[in-house]
């Protein structure tokens, strides 16, 4: 596995989270891995043990996407979706994001830029939230909230089983 470069996470403004990462591949290919469902579902997962049973992408302006993640050990699910606002393949992608069981208020607007240099691609993804509170909520909980919740549930089950025996 080639780890092209460390991921940088910054908070350029009160309502934004910016991620920058270099990949060892031309941008047309990187763009595909962000927009083709059969490729997206291979990597946009949670920690080990999570799969992505639903990954639908209608790649046109106004088109929708929908993702469902599933924890295969206990069956808990998480889902998100949104609408594509701008598509300039393979340079730029803008889409909205909203979770079904929202752990941050409102909707996020995600802008992804793909810049190629010497056969490698820098991806810069900016997530714009509706408020500073929502932005901080994303940073504080992250997608791990759902993961932790399912672990907690498992621990509770184990504890109650141990209590019974």
């Amino acid at each position: 596995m080639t780890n092209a470069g460390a991921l940088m996470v910054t908070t350029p403004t009160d309502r934004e989270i910016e991620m920058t990462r270099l990949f060892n591949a031309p941008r047309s290919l990187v763009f595909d891995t962000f927009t083709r469902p059969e490729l997206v579902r291979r990597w946009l997962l949670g920690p080990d043990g999570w799969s992505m049973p639903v990954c639908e992408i209608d790649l046109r302006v106004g088109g929708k996407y929908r993702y469902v993640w599933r924890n295969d050990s206990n069956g808990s699910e998480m889902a998100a979706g949104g609408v594509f606002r701008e598509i300039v393949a393979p340079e730029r992608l803008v889409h909205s994001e909203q979770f079904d069981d929202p752990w941050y208020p409102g909707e996020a607007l995600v802008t992804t830029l793909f810049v190629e240099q010497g056969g490698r691609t820098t991806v810069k993804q900016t997530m714009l939230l509706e408020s500073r509170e929502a932005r901080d909520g994303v940073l504080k909980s992250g997608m791990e909230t759902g993961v932790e919740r399912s672990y907690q549930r498992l621990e509770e089950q184990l504890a109650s089983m141990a209590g019974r025996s």
Partner: protein
Amino acid sequence: MTPDRLDATFAALADPTRRAILSRLASGEASVMELAEPFAMSQPAISKHLKVLERAGLISSAREAQRRPRKLEAAPLAEATKWLERYRRFWEARFQRLDALLEELQVRKTKSGRDKRQRRER
């Protein structure tokens, strides 16, 4: 740390000048004049940034000394960095999976290109 305090920390860190001031203070305390030097900014402008950092608890000033040097307060910064780092690790795990996928796709592409060339040559 309370959520409000954490919000103040993130807000304080949102500005590039303030981040530069913090990284300067990481190498030792400095007066307002010393801090203003590398920036094309007036001392009052720098003082405003210092006030934001101070309110967020990221820096403190020694009251007794005349030049009132500012110094970095590590604890709140470490807390905010911890949240950022957790978020970063979560995404880095995803991106490492993407690295592997991109490599696989490129190997497959080179291989199929080579097969086609070989077929043509035959």
